[in-house]
């Protein structure tokens, strides 16, 4: 029985990720921030969209930080962070004038910049919106069946820059190289939206449903 909890701290639309999981055959998908409910799940998705300050405020107010620590470090069940869910795991973000995050993964969340350009000087639009390639930098069960360099759907203006490079599972490039996926023990986190990334994204989510939490 695959039972997935999508942690809901009130930021953004969790419909897509829940419906993708159901489509892939997850028997039970619950969208909640209730520890009792999440305690019944055998894996957890930690999503997030919007501004980091509002996200962090809600994560703390609803005690989702404790919840996340519990599933990661006491229960040791598989956890997938998505987009701002990934960014919030880092120590600190430049967004909203600087916001302290969960510090579960050492590193900074940085801004692409207002006048962001590629190596040729061509101006790049911010947010980074659309399909970009991800280079897999670690062998990981969640990459299984996904060709290296596959494109995923991104929407973000800030990006993760992990201090411990051994945790980086995937890299993207948008004028600057950035960490598109990180992996540590039973945690995997991605900057892109697998629930919006057609076959490549669905394969990653299917892998997550079958993952035992071991790298």
């Amino acid at each position: 029985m695959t039972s997935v909890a999508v942690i809901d701290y009130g930021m953004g639309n969790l419909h897509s990720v829940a419906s993708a999981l159901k489509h892939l055959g997850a028997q039970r998908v619950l969208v909640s921030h209730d520890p009792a409910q999440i305690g019944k799940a055998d894996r957890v998705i930690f999503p997030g969209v919007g501004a980091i300050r509002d996200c962090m405020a809600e994560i703390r107010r609803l005690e989702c930080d404790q919840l996340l620590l519990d599933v990661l470090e006491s229960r040791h069940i598989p956890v997938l962070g998505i987009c701002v869910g990934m960014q919030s795991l880092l120590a600190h973000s430049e967004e909203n004038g600087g916001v302290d995050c969960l510090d579960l993964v050492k590193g900074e969340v940085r801004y692409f910049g207002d006048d962001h350009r590629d190596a040729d000087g061509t101006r790049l639009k911010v947010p980074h919106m659309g399909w970009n390639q991800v280079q897999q930098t670690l062998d990981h069960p969640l990459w299984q069946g996904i060709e290296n360099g596959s494109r995923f759907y991104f929407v973000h203006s800030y990006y993760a820059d992990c201090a411990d490079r051994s945790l980086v599972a995937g890299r993207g490039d948008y004028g600057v190289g950035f960490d598109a996926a990180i992996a540590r023990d039973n945690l995997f986190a991605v900057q892109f939206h697998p629930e919006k990334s057609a076959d490549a994204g669905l394969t990653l989510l299917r892998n997550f449903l079958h993952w035992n939490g071991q790298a």
Partner: protein
Amino acid sequence: MGLAKRIIPCLDVDNGRVVKGVNFVDIRDAGDPVEISRRYNEQGADEITFLDITATHEERDTTVHTVEAIAAEVFIPLTVGGGIRKVEDIREMLNAGADKVSINSAAIREPEFVQRAAERFGSQCIVVAIDAKRVAGDTPRWEIFTHGGRKPTGIDAVEWAVRMADYGAGEILLTSMDRDGTRDGFDLAVTRAITDAVSIPVIASGGVGNLEHLAEGVLEGGADAVLAASIFHFGEYTVQQAKEHMASRGIEMRL
């Protein structure tokens, strides 16, 4: 390696049925938006835009059900536009499974609506649609028109795009009312003027009649994405063929 340009097929939906003539050979129910979305998804569409041209409030329920049905099986970004007037309309569409909403006349009536919407739901899901028409004069200038291009507003399209980006729009959907339905290609001058003026992505729309028009939208217009309806609906070209053509012109695509 880098960010791909996007192709966005657009469905004009009236009371749960795709209009503007749909002619897929294999599809029994040619006007079913769910079936057409599935087909475009299989062909590699990068996103889907769903424009609700339904007139009455009662028919909105049909729209919500259709959006739910598409979102339950098509896992690429879905934008819903048409009749988005209040924060509640946005919430309803996002809850139905839309990823973005497109705001058009409500922004003209009350520009601050865009600001509120972006603050509440995040810029990433707020698209501002601009219907622009060239106005006579020595220097190129475009004005925003409403009511299907019949009613001038006096608002300069480029200035409006800049203002909407400042108000938190995450993307601009730019339709040339001079070109819409003509199959003569995008109005590349207004596309270029707006893509140069704003730092957010711009989707070019209106006038696509062949695959080279799509490529021009990116290469000459500077668009980040191109939107088309009839060339795909009539089965003239598949989305895949369009992407291959654009790639052959040196444009980075998701193939």
